[in-house]
């Protein structure tokens, strides 16, 4: 028999999963509206991806004194939310459960948790609540390229998280590649921490109109951010090359260099534009974000494909999903950044606290503006349609199970596989440790065939992970 630690059950009005920008805001709004709230978060301290910071050694109120707060955009928003979060905790309105991962959400709602990988000391708790706000955020979207399985290749966000959490760099000389505005803060963070960024390769050609667009769509803060990065890039002499990609990561045993090329608007390599960077320690890739959809999908929410090709949950003006009592906020409703995540969290938390309220809700204008801006961003930074052309038949697509592009196209062409699910069945792509979190999008694209984008069904199939997090069998043995 198992000697698993016995878990406690906590019953509240509103349960919130995630303590990033969206989850913190949702918890605060729900608590301030009078609800009893529980917040489950895998992190050891609040902040999520965006406000990830070094381990707090002092009282949170003094967090602004820490060097770590410096350089975080919206840090004052964090401090404000954090102060309100802590006050609600002290008042007994918020039960905060850090270091726990929800591995299963049952309808109605019951959350089953397990200690997060880095927090093996925590004791799992079961949370029941009549309303649930899911704010699980997202992670870097990856596309395979020859050599990307070599050590030294990281997700761009992984590099940033590494720096934010540890205060040191994972290497000295970096190449950052992919698409989207997020490549900028990653490169900036590396430079600020003393690393050398040899190049930032952006596959699109977002022209000078982007800052104007930011202003025009009513999000002037974004224009300011852009200008700051431009100055920082100039100061650190970081080359920013548009319409450029990494075509191959070079190295034996680990990443040592990259081959790059210019591409056309579709992402097709332009002959004769190849060049190489040698003496590289770390290659960071980021192709936008993949919202973490396993919990919403497992509870059966309606989904759609967003402008960036990601599967996201459909919500109404209260942030309520198609499942009554289930609210979504942050990246799972569409990748849109931290400011939008906070706005959505506030709306979701308030609505979840008063589910029976019949007063018609008008979506805050700021949410509309930020969504519009996010859509424009996605359109300016598409995943290049021709990316599968960069692969050779022996390029690894699923790193966990070592499945190659050739095996995938063969399953598609000869066995009739055409979506993430059938590819998984026939090739094992997505069956390994990460359960398709890394290769799911790429496999879905390859399954759809040349020039085709994966549909919602295929992406939902790849987001279907009945265990939202790994959980020890000894813990499962305690279930009845």
């Amino acid at each position, binding site marked *: *028999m*198992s*000697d*698993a630690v016995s878990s406690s059950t906590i019953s509240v009005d509103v349960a919130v999963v995630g303590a990033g920008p969206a989850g913190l805001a949702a918890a605060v709004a729900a608590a301030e509206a009078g609800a009893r709230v529980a917040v489950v978060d895998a992190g050891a301290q609040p902040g999520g991806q965006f406000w990830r910071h070094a381990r707090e050694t002092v009282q949170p109120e003094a967090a602004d004194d820490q060097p770590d707060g410096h350089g975080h955009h919206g840090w004052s928003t964090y401090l404000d939310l954090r102060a309100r979060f802590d006050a609600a905790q002290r008042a007994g309105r918020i039960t905060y459960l850090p270091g726990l991962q929800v591995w*299963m959400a*049952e*309808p109605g709602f019951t959350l*089953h948790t397990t200690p997060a990988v880095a927090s093996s000391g925590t004791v799992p708790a079961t949370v029941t609540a009549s309303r649930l706000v899911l704010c699980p955020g997202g992670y870097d979207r990856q596309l395979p390229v020859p050599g990307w399985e070599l050590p030294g290749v990281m997700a761009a966000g992984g590099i940033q998280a590494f720096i934010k959490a540890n205060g040191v760099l994972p290497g000295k000389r970096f190449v950052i590649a992919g698409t989207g505005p997020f490549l900028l803060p990653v490169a900036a963070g590396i430079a600020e921490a003393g690393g050398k960024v040899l190049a930032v390769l952006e596959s699109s050609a977002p022209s000078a109109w982007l800052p104007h667009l930011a202003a025009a769509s009513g999000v002037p803060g974004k224009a300011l951010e852009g200008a700051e990065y431009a100055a920082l890039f100039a100061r650190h002499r970081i080359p920013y090359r548009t319409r450029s990609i990494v075509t191959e990561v070079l190295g034996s045993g680990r990443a040592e260099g990259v081959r790059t090329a210019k591409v056309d608007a579709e992402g097709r390599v332009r002959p004769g534009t190849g060049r190489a960077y040698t003496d590289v320690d770390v290659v960071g890739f980021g192709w936008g974000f993949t919202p973490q959809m396993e919990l919403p999908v*497992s509870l059966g929410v309606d989904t759609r494909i967003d402008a960036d090709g990601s599967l996201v949950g459909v919500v109404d003006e209260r942030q309520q999903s198609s499942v009554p009592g289930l609210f979504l906020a942050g990246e799972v409703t569409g990748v849109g950044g931290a400011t939008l995540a906070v706005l959505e969290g506030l709306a979701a938390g308030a609505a979840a606290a008063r589910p029976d309220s019949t007063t018609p809700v008008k979506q805050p204008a700021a949410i509309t503006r930020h969504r519009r801006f996010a859509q424009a961003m996605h359109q300016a930074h598409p995943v290049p349609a021709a990316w599968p052309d960069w692969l050779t038949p022996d390029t690894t697509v699923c790193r*966990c*199970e070592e499945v190659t592009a050739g095996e995938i196209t063969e*399953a598609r*062409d*000869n*066995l*009739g*596989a*055409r979506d993430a699910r*059938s590819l998984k*069945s*026939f090739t*094992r792509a997505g*069956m*390994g*440790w990460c*359960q398709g979190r890394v290769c799911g999008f790429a496999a879905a694209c390859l399954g759809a065939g040349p020039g085709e984008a994966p549909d919602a069904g295929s992406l939902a199939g790849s987001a279907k*992970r*009945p*265990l939202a997090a*790994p*959980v*020890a*069998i*000894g813990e*499962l*043995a*305690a*279930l*009845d």
Partner: protein
Amino acid sequence: MNFGNGPRGSDVLVMGAGVIGAATAYFAAQQGLSVTVLDKGLPAGGTSSACEGNILVSDKELGPELELTRYSLGVWHNDLAEHKKLWEFESKGGIIVASRESSLASLNRVMAVQQGFGVDVEELDQAALREAEPHISREALGGASYREDCQVQPMLVAAHLVRLATEAGARFIADTPVTAFLRSGPGRSVSGRDGGRVTGVRTPRGDFPAGAVVNCTGTWAGELAALAGVEVPVLPRRGFVMVTEPLPPMVHHKVYAAEYIDNVGSSDAGLQASPVVEGTPSGTILIGSTRERVGFDRTVSTAALGLLARNATALFPFLERVKAIRHYHGFRPYCPDHLPVIGHDDRAPGLWHAAGHEGAGIGLSAGTGKLLAQALAGLTPDMDLTPFAPARFGESGAHTSAHREEATA
């Protein structure tokens, strides 16, 4: 692969591209028959993609199912030998472990019966058991080793058999659900008991006339039979399977608890589980499986997960600290008498069935397909199919409420 559409007649029309339909199509094509396979989705979209790929002798008691299992094993090893690699065929052997005196006694009883029937089974004392499976629980009293037990990757079996069938001239059409049967005879068009001979099927892509229509739709077989006005009582029996993180090899055989045997044949509706623990080539460990009759309920059952976990850790205590990364569930197609339905349905001439293989359809597919193909080709099957005859469900079948669809062909 041929995904073209448009109606065309054939000798045999196979409904369903799970392992059973795929094997039937493959062997029918080998018999020189012209074959069309239709599925409402892709190959292996049903139970065949939500199971384990065990080909077991060890869990069968004396009777027609054991006979079919052994026949099928021969087909896997001989007729399909050249394709073994395609579906990751592995002869790893099974071990049944008894942890209680009472289960050791029933294990010995079963072993004796099986030995009498020629099954390759060897008794393992505690020391031999520990040598075969060093991480087995200290509580284990003894066991039995079944060298004939083997495994395949079921999704690859279905997909490749369909592909091989098409290479032998068969045609496969995906996304084509059968909605009604074409009938000859009185009225020529009525779908139902008195509709005369089954002469083909109707689908949203048009009609497909055929000399013989084979119902290989697994848990849907009862529904399809009802469209022809006959009863084939195939019901779903849900099963959960759990998958661990990848590990270095710790479990070397398929390892079952002796209680497995008692469970398999039981009709009890309640939740049951006996551990079937096995390592896979990729390092993950599969922990199967529960059995319960809850219709087609897809809600995740924490009770089922708990039971699987407790049983698995009782067999292999090291699993307690190992992480599960996934679980899945499927619905075994079973008949009340726990025997599959294989053969011509005299109640609806022209209609054949191969369904209801419950928890053994993967293993039994090769034999089922070959025998049925022989019968379809007008030959005498290598093995008597009478015990599996659809007619055993009697005339009462006439009273099922069938959808009455008009077909004009």
